């Protein structure tokens, strides 16, 4: 079985390295096919592992020693258990589809080979992240996906905005990673190991304060990676990258790494329900906060990005309240329908010559029927309508919040569900139905290539049926994760389901009704609330004015005043001193023996005097 583990892990790396050899060359179709095939192999072998893992058997291998210094010993170890195999299957599945899709999407890009090299490198890093059996391996993967995310957001690096967004994402993550590192140091300081099993076995013996600190620090890292408030701004800007990247990294996999961390460290968070409650509150806040920004945005990809943020908030609510398996389940279903939504958006973008403003689209159903159907499926799943996947997982999260008697959180999520339904169908309506604005603007949309559509159908299928896997999923993962006990009455549970479905349906109905008639008038745009939302609560401006500008000013000050006038000046002074001394003493080297002899005599005299003055006192 170890063989399959190594195949799963290293097949994407091999693909990435091979594609990297051709990175600077013009497009070679086979790099795309090869990397897709290798990631596909990785997916198949993780399916084999999925069949292998059960309640009694997990796979835990130590590939080699990596760092061993004194008492510190960190092996390259990998573990395939119920949680990591779910992540592996999800990641490799979505990755395979995104790879195949990208062959079509990046068709005319001159850096075709480089793209696939980065994309496969990302898959490899993500697998390291989820498969590692210790926190350091997780951290390596964590940084690896951060690096790949940077490379892929800034893939079109000649665009100023893209490279800016890439740097923003990278720097935001570094700030949060500092928190994560502190957590890791604290773990090592207190327990003396990074291995999950040792850490979780010994965490009970620690002072509860220490555990709280560890949990909080790790969560700061998770906040950065999963773009939770206040680190959320990078995710929307990351939409500068190619759309398959947004689908894979910024919807399905990397951003869920934060949730994975909480689930993986559930033995820690289980001990500190207070921190868990804070996590859940922040998650609920982000769920509504991000959904509200998605309501008014006009950028096709940004709407979906905010929706991702909002759904990550839902996952954090579940994870924070101790319903780890539900968080993981929502993570999985979300990966399916959200990447489908993004990939569909990619088709639309291509059809519209990279136009992203949904006000300029409308009526695309006529020309892109398949994409329209796929995106509608994804939107229904996202809105959480029975029997689509989102219904099962999202509804469970609401039930958890209610069950926890956290009614405020429940209410936030409830409102969030309504908003989700509304903005999803606002998008669908404005893009695919209504007046055909694009014709007026001279666009000639065309459907994507057939193989691209076929590649998307598995995702659509899973978006529809994944919810029915709930029971087997539950039975599978609770061997490792703590189960969550519902104490709610059946009748209350049913009422919740009805209520949530009702608000989701009314959100959809409202969006359909409103946008069928051309949407809201221009009057809405002059409202204060609209301005607030469309400017993202002025948070980017705030960051810009409160952090970036003062920082730039301080940096300029240090550069002009301190660096140039003090540091550089000192270094220059030393250099000039020697230069001038050399210029002056050059005359000694006259080449005249007589004058050199005189200098020699003078030198001896000086040394004699020194020898007398400095002689050791007896």
């Amino acid at each position, binding site marked *: 079985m170890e063989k399959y583990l190594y195949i799963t892990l290293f097949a994407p790396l091999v693909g990435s390295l091979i594609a990297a050899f051709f990175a600077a060359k013009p497009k070679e179709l086979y790099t795309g096919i090869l990397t897709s095939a290798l990631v596909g192999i990785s997916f198949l072998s993780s399916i084999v592992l999925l069949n292998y893992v059960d309640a009694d058997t997990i796979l835990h291998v130590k590939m080699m020693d990596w760092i061993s210094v004194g008492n510190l010993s960190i092996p390259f170890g990998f573990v395939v258990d119920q949680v990591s195999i779910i992540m592996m299957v999800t990641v490799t599945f979505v990755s395979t589809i995104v790879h195949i899709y990208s062959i079509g999407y990046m068709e005319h890009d001159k850096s075709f080979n480089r793209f696939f090299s980065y994309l496969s490198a990302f898959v490899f890093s993500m697998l390291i992240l989820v498969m590692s059996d210790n926190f350091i391996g997780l951290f390596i993967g964590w940084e690896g996906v951060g690096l790949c995310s940077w490379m892929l957001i800034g893939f079109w690096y000649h665009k100023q905005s893209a490279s800016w967004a890439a740097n923003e994402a990278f720097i935001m993550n570094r700030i949060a990673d500092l928190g994560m590192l502190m957590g890791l140091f604290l773990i090592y300081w207190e327990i003396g190991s990074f291995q999950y099993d040792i850490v979780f076995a010994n965490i009970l013996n620690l002072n509860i304060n220490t555990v709280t600190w560890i949990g909080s620090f790790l969560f700061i890292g998770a906040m950065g990676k999963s773009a939770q408030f206040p680190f959320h701004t990078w995710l929307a800007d990351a939409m500068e990258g190619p759309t398959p990247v947004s689908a894979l990294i910024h919807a399905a996999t990397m951003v869920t790494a934060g949730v994975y961390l909480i689930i993986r460290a559930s033995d820690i968070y289980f001990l500190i329900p207070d921190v868990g409650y804070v996590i859940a509150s922040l998650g609920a806040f982000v769920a509504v906060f991000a959904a509200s920004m998605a309501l008014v945005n006009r950028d096709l990809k940004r709407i979906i990005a905010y929706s991702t943020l909002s759904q990550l908030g839902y996952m954090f609510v579940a994870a924070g309240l101790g319903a780890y398996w539900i968080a993981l389940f929502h993570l999985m279903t979300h990966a399916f329908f959200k990447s489908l939504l993004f990939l569909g958006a990619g088709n639309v973008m291509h059809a519209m010559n990279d136009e992203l403003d949904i006000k300029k689209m409308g009526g695309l159903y006529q020309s892109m029927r398949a994409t329209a159907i796929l995106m509608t499926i994804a939107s229904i799943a996202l809105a959480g309508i029975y029997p689509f996947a989102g219904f099962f997982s999202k509804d469970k999260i609401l039930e958890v919040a209610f069950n926890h008697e956290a009614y405020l959180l429940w209410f936030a999520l409830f409102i969030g569900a309504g908003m989700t339904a509304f903005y999803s169908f606002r998008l669908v309506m404005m893009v695919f139905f209504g007046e055909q604005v694009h014709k007026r603007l001279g666009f000639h949309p065309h459907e994507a290539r057939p193989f691209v559509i076929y590649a998307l159908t598995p995702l659509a299928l899973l978006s529809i049926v994944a919810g029915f896997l709930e029971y087997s999923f539950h039975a599978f993962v609770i061997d490792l994760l703590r189960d969550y006990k519902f104490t709610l009455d059946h009748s209350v549970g049913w009422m919740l389901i009805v209520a949530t479905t009702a608000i989701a349906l009314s959100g959809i109905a409202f969006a359909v009704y409103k946008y069928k008639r051309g949407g809201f008038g221009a009057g809405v745009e002059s409202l204060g609330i609209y301005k607030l939302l469309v400017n993202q609560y002025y948070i980017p401006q705030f960051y810009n004015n409160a952090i970036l500008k003062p920082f730039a000013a301080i940096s300029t000050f240090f550069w002009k005043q301190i660096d140039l006038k003090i540091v550089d000046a000192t270094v220059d002074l030393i250099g000039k001193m020697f230069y001038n001394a050399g210029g002056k003493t050059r005359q000694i*080297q006259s080449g*005249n*023996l*007589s004058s050199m002899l005189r200098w020699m005599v003078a030198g001896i005299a000086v040394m004699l005097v020194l020898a007398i003055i400095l002689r050791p006192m007896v």
Partner: protein
Amino acid sequence: MIGLAHYLVLSGILFSIGLFGVMKRKNLLMLFFSTEILLNAVNIGFVAVGRFYGDMSGQIFAFFIIAVAASEVAVGLGLIVLWYKRTGSIDLDSLQMMKG
């Protein structure tokens, strides 16, 4: 009575004369004479101090120096003769090819 001090003073005077010659003379031959004076000043010092302490090594050193000086002069004179043949002058100031 002539004691150690007298010898050492003589040695010092000779050394000063030699040093003065080394610094002042522009003629290469004169420079050689001056170095010989320097060496012999040191020889006198060695012998005197060796005698004073009843130690033979002072005298042995002096012999060594005489021997070395003799060979040095032999080589040096040869070089000077060669230089004179080549340039027609043994003035120090004319021997200035490596000005820094």
